[in-house]
């Protein structure tokens, strides 16, 4: 068997063992996660179906001298936009996956010690990265595709053809991600850290300055005509983008246009093959050098006095709490995988806040205020849920094989849980409370609405932190060092689903409290406004208390008993 065949066979066996290991998980956990994933998929499908149906009803409008069905123009562009967003996400996530897979997986030491060609190793890594990247893209993309097919009454052949197009559609960003990871590893260890940060900051400033006029031009306006909408959406529909080829292949399959399908499939397949071939060349040129460069970085000696402000800041805390918090903060700050993702996360948040005033002016009308308040809180709660699931859930697992050190100390294991809960609640509230306050002020929300929103965010920071810490302790994975993989396991998925459920219920309670008069009228409830508002707030308190207490109790019990 060839080297590539052997590596593929080993990868297939590993995958088989991973899938088989699901049988060892508790049935309840698997059932909750499966149902949750189906539920989220249905929500995505519902949103996509609603949007396609809406566009389908727009009818016919004049574009210049020609009368055209708006849906014929917009739907392919909506598909192209969805595909472009997926591909952009894939390049990023595949880049991170590739960086782990090429440079942090232990099997690479074995592979590089064998005479296996570097092209074969790169091909094997590409397939691994594409596979792990593909499932999330398939999960997010399939409801959009099905909704499109149903609204357009497409033939069944659309779906297998889309699946066929999906393979090269994923391989292209996966290959790009792999190349980025290889080139970055080859070049970055040589750049001094300060210089690198300055260079990145300069690139970011130049990019913002260059894109600002285009972004301002592309914003939705209150009265946008079809020509404006076509121009706006046309930017994502470039004939040079693989996302456009994929969207066109799908649209053509819906029209039973075999020739067009064949053309776009060929474009995708040819470019995927070319990208894989280029990756092989890049791997030959950079892989060994990158490994050597990473292994040759000179250890930096850190000043013993640097960072002394942190112990001083936390001085009022008991010693174990203080030093556990410092340890968590330093570990986070020195992990590029963690802070780079945090930087992306906060960058997106900054964009969200910066764009708040670009919505149509009609949104400032009184009738929208209630909904804006809800959406504002919802956005803050979703940020809190994402923050806790991505960064807090893995904290206990990340103690990993070092957990013996904490277990040996004369500190009860539950202290570790309480410390992580406190840290998470404070950080989550500072971020999401700040976001809610900032966005509330920019949207000119009334003081009462703002206060209720802040209270909801405070309750949610505690509950979502407790959920993430509790489930993190209940389902720890002490063998995994990659926080991304810890989160994508069953425990992380369960945490995400339950967090979303809490967000939905908390946001509902808040909406009912703020709009009790309408709720009472609609449902025929005879309670006064005061009684109704108090009942909603009581429901929020009970929900928060249960979401805090139950997972924490389960997590503490489990961690107390866990054997290392």
């Amino acid at each position, binding site marked *: 068997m060839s080297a590539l065949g052997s590596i593929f066979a080993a990868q297939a066996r590993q995958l088989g063992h991973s899938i088989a290991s699901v049988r060892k998980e508790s049935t309840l956990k698997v059932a909750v996660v499966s149902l949750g994933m189906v539920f989220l998929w249905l929500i995505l499908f519902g949103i996509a179906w609603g949007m396609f149906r809406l566009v389908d009803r727009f009818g016919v409008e004049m574009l210049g001298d020609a009368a055209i069905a708006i849906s014929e123009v917009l739907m392919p562009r909506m598909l192209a936009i969805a595909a472009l967003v997926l591909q952009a996400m894939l390049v990023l996530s595949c880049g991170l996956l590739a960086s782990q897979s090429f440079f942090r997986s232990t099997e690479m030491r074995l592979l590089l010690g064998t005479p296996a060609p570097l092209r074969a190793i790169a091909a094997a890594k590409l397939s691994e990265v594409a596979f792990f990247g593909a499932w999330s893209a398939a999960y997010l993309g399939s409801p959009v595709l099905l909704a499109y097919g149903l609204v357009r009454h497409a033939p069944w052949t659309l779906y297998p053809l889309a699946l066929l197009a999906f393979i090269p559609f994923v391989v292209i960003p996966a290959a790009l991600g792999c190349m980025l990871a290889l080139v970055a590893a080859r070049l970055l260890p040589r750049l001094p850290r300060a210089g690198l940060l300055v260079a990145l900051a300069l690139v970011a400033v130049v990019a913002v300055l260059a894109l600002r006029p285009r972004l301002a031009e592309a914003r939705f306006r209150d009265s946008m005509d079809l020509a404006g909408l076509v121009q706006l959406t046309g930017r994502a529909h470039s004939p040079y983008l693989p996302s456009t080829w994929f969207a066109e292949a799908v649209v053509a399959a819906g029209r039973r246009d075999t020739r067009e399908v064949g053309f776009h499939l060929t474009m995708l397949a040819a470019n995927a093959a070319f990208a894989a071939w280029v990756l092989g060349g890049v791997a030959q040129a950079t892989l060994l050098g990158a490994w050597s460069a990473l292994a040759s970085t000179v250890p930096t000696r850190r000043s013993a006095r640097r960072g002394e402000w942190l112990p001083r800041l936390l001085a009022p805390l008991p*010693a174990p709490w203080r*030093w*556990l918090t410092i340890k968590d903060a330093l570990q986070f700050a020195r992990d590029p995988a963690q802070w780079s993702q945090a930087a992306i996360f906060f960058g997106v948040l900054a964009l969200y806040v910066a764009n708040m005033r670009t919505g149509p002016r009609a949104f400032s009308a009184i009738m929208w205020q209630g909904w804006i308040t809800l959406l504002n809180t919802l956005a803050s709660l979703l940020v809190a849920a994402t923050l806790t699931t991505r960064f807090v859930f893995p904290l206990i697992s990340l103690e990993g*094989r*070092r957990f013996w050190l904490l277990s040996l100390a004369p500190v009860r294991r539950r202290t570790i849980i309480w410390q992580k809960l406190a840290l998470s609640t404070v950080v989550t509230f500072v971020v999401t409370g700040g976001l809610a306050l900032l966005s509330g002020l920019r949207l000119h929300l009334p003081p009462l609405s703002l206060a209720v929103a802040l209270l909801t965010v405070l309750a949610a920071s505690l509950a979502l932190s407790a959920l993430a810490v509790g489930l993190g302790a209940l389902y720890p994975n002490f063998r995994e060092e990659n926080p991304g993989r810890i989160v994508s396991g069953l425990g992380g998925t369960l945490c995400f689903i339950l967090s979303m459920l809490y967000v939905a219920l908390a946001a509902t309670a808040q909406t009912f409290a703020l709009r009790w008069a309408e709720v009472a009228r609609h449902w025929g409830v005879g309670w006064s406004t005061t009684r109704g508002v108090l009942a909603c707030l009581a429901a929020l308190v009970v929900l928060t208390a249960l979401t805090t207490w139950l997972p924490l109790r389960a997590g503490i019990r489990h961690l107390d008993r866990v054997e290392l």
Partner: protein
Amino acid sequence: MIRTEALCKRFGEKVAVAELDLAIPEGEFFCFLGPNGAGKTTTIKVLTGLLRPTSGRALVGGHDVMREPEAAKRLLGYVPDMPFLYDRLTGRELLRLVAGLYDLSASTVPARIDAVLADFEMTGLADQLIGDLSHGMRQKLSFAATFIHDPRVVVVDEPWVGLDPRSIHRVKTTLKERTRQGLTVFMSTHTLSIAEEVADRIGIIHQGKLLALGSVTEIKGLATRPGSLEDVFLELTREEE
């Protein structure tokens, strides 16, 4: 100082440690020998509270490690076979964390850290990230972390992997000297020559059962014909065909 009473640990059907009775007095250097999978690490993990015994109990300084874990852990230090430490902390930061977990007096911590770093020849590397250290250096850092709170009992699991001869000598000498000052050492090892050199008493475990217990001379006397500790070990732990 260390006592196990009918200590038993099962993993499902497999008996890892069976009815182990041990009593190790204060100031003794005890070496625990046995082939791979004999139950040495399991015994150590029960002694350090990382595993719960299926039955029986383990005591450190008179404290049951399950019922009074915090009191037992205050007396205990542990050096594992694989030095998994926080890669993104420096050695000094790790020692400060450990000192914080033991709630040592803040005023004495810096001097204490400098002392243990010097003891294990790690002063020059204290401000480097642990991830940049070699296996042997991490092992020495584990020793330094173990001694930061001045334990009365130290449990060491196969500590020699990755250590250079000079470091082995240093660790060996330090442990032996400290036993003379009252420290009790429980060490699991495959390096029979070192055990023969430093041990006050030796225990040999095989398939979860304690086969032999006594001084080096007494253990050597168990062989059917006079020989080295290695000969006795091989004879006692011989697998039936």
